[in-house]
């Protein structure tokens, strides 16, 4: 009972071998089954998340949210799914058919592919590759590509503008994201996700490297492309940005990919900073680890939702300033400081709690110092100030 997943795996293996299947075939079937299972769980989670998100948005913005279909509106998402499947696919005139149709699939695939390497519990791990962290960063690149393809192939100026903004934003926010990801890699001495999670028991990297965790949270919120970083689909400026021309399930794929991306960021923060599957008794009962993993990811998801539902959209120059003039320098200083502190304390051979305490102090010092410096510096470009204008001017008196 404690090790439910491996129990089922062993049972299926013996069953297939008993039926005379070869060992390679059994392994292949089991891997295929595992991947399909992970993907299906992802989709089921997204259906639930869409409802949670709307209900939460309703609460935060002082309205009800969905409340018609079923108790508390829990069947709203299902109604939406049925609606979106029956909608007509519209391909705009002059669109590039191939790229137009591949883009939503690519957007979805780039998010789902990240789940291939996750450690769900101490002995339930996806592909446990040596280059796990690098794989995650590399696969995300296809998401940017999908947005570019969608924006360009729609033959729509708004879509193209949205896509161009996305490149400016997603590529620049990748830098602080990757640099802050280097901190857990540095502390765990490995790029393997399972090793990173194991190194965090019981001291989570949130305590050892809080600055990196914060930078990672901010920059991956920008990578999701939702508010306050939703410049690539700003409704008031660009209709719907890069997916203006998409309808039916093609739009649905972008929508689901966006939701799943937010949950995936929650899972990544769980793995890198919140101890992954770690928790009481998770070593003995791996099934608990799976529950902890999904539970923590969901908590981070709620925090991200909370932030993005509370903040208005950030202006494009402020968005670039935040990245290039604050996040990138801070993340580099933080990386160097953590590396030096880690090495020095390795030489001193301190107790673990002292190590964690000193690391925490170093991180908080860097964070406060950088916030202080950022507060003192003046913006380079002063916004032009216009003299106040009367609201209405009688005709003929304009100067």
């Amino acid at each position, binding site marked *: 009972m404690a090790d439910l997943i491996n129990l089922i795996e062993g049972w299926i293996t013996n069953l297939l071998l008993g039926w005379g299947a070869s060992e390679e075939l059994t392994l292949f079937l089991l891997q295929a089954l595992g991947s399909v299972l992970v993907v299906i769980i992802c989709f089921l989670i997204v259906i639930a998340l869409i409802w949670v998100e709307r209900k939460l948005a309703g609460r935060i913005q002082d309205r009800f949210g969905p409340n018609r279909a079923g108790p508390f509106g829990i069947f709203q998402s299902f109604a939406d799914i049925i609606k979106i499947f029956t909608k007509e696919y519209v391909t705009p005139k002059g669109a590039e058919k191939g790229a137009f149709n591949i883009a939503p699939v690519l957007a979805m695939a780039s998010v789902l592919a990240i789940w291939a390497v996750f450690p769900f519990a101490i002995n339930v791990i996806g592909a446990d590759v040596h*280059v796990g962290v*690098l*794989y995650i960063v590399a696969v995300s*690149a296809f998401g940017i*590509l999908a947005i570019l393809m969608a924006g360009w192939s729609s033959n729509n100026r708004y879509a*193209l503008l949205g896509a161009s903004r996305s490149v400016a934003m997603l590529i620049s926010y990748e830098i602080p994201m990757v640099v802050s990801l280097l901190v857990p890699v540095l502390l765990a001495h490995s790029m393997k996700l399972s090793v990173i999670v194991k190194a965090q028991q019981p001291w989570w990297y949130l305590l050892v490297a809080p600055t990196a965790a914060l930078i990672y949270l901010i920059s991956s919120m920008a990578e999701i492309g939702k508010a306050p970083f939703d410049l690539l689909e700003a409704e008031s400026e660009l209709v719907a940005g890069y997916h203006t021309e998409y309808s039916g399930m093609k739009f649905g794929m972008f929508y689901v990919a966006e939701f799943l991306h937010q949950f995936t960021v929650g899972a990544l923060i769980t793995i890198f900073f919140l101890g992954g599957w770690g928790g009481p008794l998770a070593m003995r009962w791996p099934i608990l680890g799976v529950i902890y993993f999904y539970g923590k990811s969901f908590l981070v998801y709620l925090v991200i939702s909370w932030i993005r539902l509370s903040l208005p959209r950030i202006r494009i120059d402020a968005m670039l300033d935040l990245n290039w003039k604050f996040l990138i320098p801070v993340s580099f200083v933080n990386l160097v400081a953590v590396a030096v502190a880690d090495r020095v304390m390795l030489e001193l051979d301190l107790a673990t709690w002292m190590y964690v305490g000193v690391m925490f102090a170093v991180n908080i010092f860097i964070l406060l110092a950088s916030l202080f410096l950022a507060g003192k510096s003046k913006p380079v470009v002063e916004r032009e100030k216009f003299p106040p204008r009367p609201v209405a001017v009688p005709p003929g008196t304009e100067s």
Partner: protein
Amino acid sequence: MLVSVLVFVFASLVTLGAAVAVVTNKNILHSAFYLILAFVGVAAIYVMLEAPFIAMVQVLVYIGAIAILIVFAIMLTRRLMSKDMDQKNAQWIPSALGSLTLFVVLGWIVYTAGWPAQEGAMPAEPISQLGQDLLTTYLVPFEIASVLLLAALVGAILIGRERETRSAE
């Protein structure tokens, strides 16, 4: 064994086909997308050679940075977009000669090289081994490469700034 041969043949065909499409396509943005497909095929071959690090760096650098930069640059220049470009310009003969020479030299190298393979198993942690080697045995090339990249960064900022100072004068 058979499966790996099939996968290799498939990846090579995709790479070569996409590469041919890059050159022959009239729409320059289609060429860029086919170039990305070729990069994916090369990454797949790296994975088959048990070099996942190189494969991931290939995807990260070539698709995540270079290809997206190319696509973005094409999208910003409206004249190049959605028009069937003339595939020749004034310099096509010298560049064809240069490419042919490069092809012959590379082909000769590939044909004559003995491809020595080191015996023995892979190290348990290939990436940490790579990092150790880069910072001990190959420290000087590593540092030269980083200085080169830094110079490129500084140069990019200088080029970007030039116009600003000129207009201020």
